[in-house]
């Protein structure tokens, strides 16, 4: 059984069909890339999976469990972490606090625990900090942990978003254009990080326009155009697929 199954997924916005009977699977431990011209519906697919809006038709299953009708925070709790195309960090919080936020759904202390601070709560707070520090180290942001998120340079902000999503302890990490705006060195570091994340046991689903990244790290790629899947397979196959080339021809990329 695949980790994530998407069947017949359809979403209309007014008269526009953003996603059209999409069918695909993500297997445990793989890196699946999704490419396609602008407006092909890629981010919409992410938003449907993370529950930000409901599909008009179709089914989404994580480990066999349907995700339909669940609120986004429940879906996250099930084990899907994400980043956003336009970075959506908690700008006025520190780097550390941003990552700690990711631990929220894995911890339980409520208002009573906050006020009374029994031993269990204090231990939990400690573990939140330790986990957050671990993820910061992994994404090489530990030095900046007291900085405000909004003051970070762009590349670091992208990495922070990933660190925050990792703090959730996801099975599946979905990354929306993580390389956008990064320079060559940052891109290489990103590719390395993504590999390491996969090696740690997390499955990855990413949208990217940077072909070097997608072709370089993906195990498989699916291609979307106008909401439909037009190709699927190993990077080399997809790259030479005439329909894929046609979809990109004539578009400003």
């Amino acid at each position, binding site marked *: 059984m695949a980790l994530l199954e998407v069947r017949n997924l359809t979403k209309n916005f007014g008269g526009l069909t953003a996603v059209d009977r999409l069918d695909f699977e993500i297997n445990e431990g793989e890196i699946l890339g999704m490419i396609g011209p602008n407006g092909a519906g890629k981010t919409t697919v992410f938003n449907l999976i993370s529950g*930000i809006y409901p599909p008009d038709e179709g089914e989404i299953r994580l480990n066999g469990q349907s995700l339909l009708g669940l609120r986004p925070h429940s879906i*996250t709790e099930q084990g899907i972490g994400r980043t956003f195309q336009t970075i959506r960090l908690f*700008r006025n919080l520190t780097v550390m606090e941003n990552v700690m*936020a*990711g631990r929220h759904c894995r911890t339980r202390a409520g208002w009573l625990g*906050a006020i009374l601070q029994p031993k269990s709560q204090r231990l939990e707070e400690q573990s939140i900090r330790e986990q957050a520090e671990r993820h910061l180290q992994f994404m090489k942001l530990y030095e900046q942990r007291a900085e405000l998120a909004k003051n970070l340079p762009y590349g670091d902000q992208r990495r922070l978003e990933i660190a*925050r999503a990792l703090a959730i302890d996801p099975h599946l990490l979905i990354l929306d254009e993580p390389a956008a705006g990064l320079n060559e060195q940052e891109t290489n570091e990103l590719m390395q990080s993504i590999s390491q994340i996969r090696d740690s046991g997390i499955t990855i689903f990413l949208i990217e326009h940077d072909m070097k990244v997608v072709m370089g790290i993906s195990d498989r790629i699916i291609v979307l155009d106008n909401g439909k899947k037009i190709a699927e397979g190993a990077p080399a196959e997809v790259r030479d697929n005439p329909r894929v080339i046609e979809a990109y021809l004539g578009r400003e990329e």
Partner: protein
Amino acid sequence: MDLIARWRKLDERYLYLALTILAVLFPWLVRSVRWTQVANFFFVYALLGLSLNIIVGYAGLFQLGHAAFYAVGAYTTAILSSRYNIPTFWLLPVAGLVSAVFAILISRPILHLRGDYLCIVTIGFGEIVRISLRNDASSLVFLSKIPGLQFLEEKLTGLVITGGPNGIFGINRPGILGFTFRQQWHYFYLFLAFVALTIFAMRRLENSRLGRAWTCVREDELAAEAMGIDTVRVKLLAFAIGAAWAGVAGNLYASWVTVIAPESFSFWESVIMFCIVVLGGTGSIPGVLVGTVGMIVLPEILREVLLNIQQWRMLIFGAAMISMMVFRPEGLWPSQRFRRELEAGD
């Protein structure tokens, strides 16, 4: 560096210590019933301000109807105390609980509303509560005109629950182990203890998992939800906890003045509480205290000092509100975060 920023450099803890010592000695230092009474007003409003600070400051929700929760706590206490003679201390948790339940019921359907709309709805709720309190159950007799509900006519005519525009009198004073609180300075220490307790609890809430969740929801609700924070639950909790505290303040107030009426819980009261939070410094505990001084104590001092401009008081007040926002929108003693948010022009 401006004066206020320099003050803030002092370790907040020392400041609290000094203030506590001064506070404890206050009735002895200032032997005046009148000023002790003013101090008691300060405490009640400080509690209200701190409770509203949870909703407006931490969770970032627009609340201009907070007087409703205050009223629910006060009237619950008043009715149960004056009619059934239940000791008011026992009613403290009851007042808090009833307010909290009330808050959960009315806020659940409106949580998804955008800031300004939420503001208007809360104003609406506040007024509905006040009008209901003023009209009392007997005014609902018109419902018996609906077919099938004729039996209501007999039950509702003359039924007094809230005491109408005149309110309720004869609320019991709080008592513990045989000792009844009667003098202003008795109440002073009672209220001081409550405020100290509240501040202690608030600081812990601020820096907890829940406090962080509130901040995340305030910063970017969608991102917070996507990171696994149940934003509905978190917002409900803000309303419930804020309301519970306001209800407790209502209980204390009712047992202090022993007579309450609907006009003490008007929109104007909600405005005062809102101003306390925003003018003092949204989201910051010292800010709320400073705000309470500004909104409650300062006018009293001015009243003594500048007798002849008494009638200009409100005019000055309005102008002061505008000026404060134009020149220092982050408030007198802003929390670190809110200042950062404003600096960016977010």
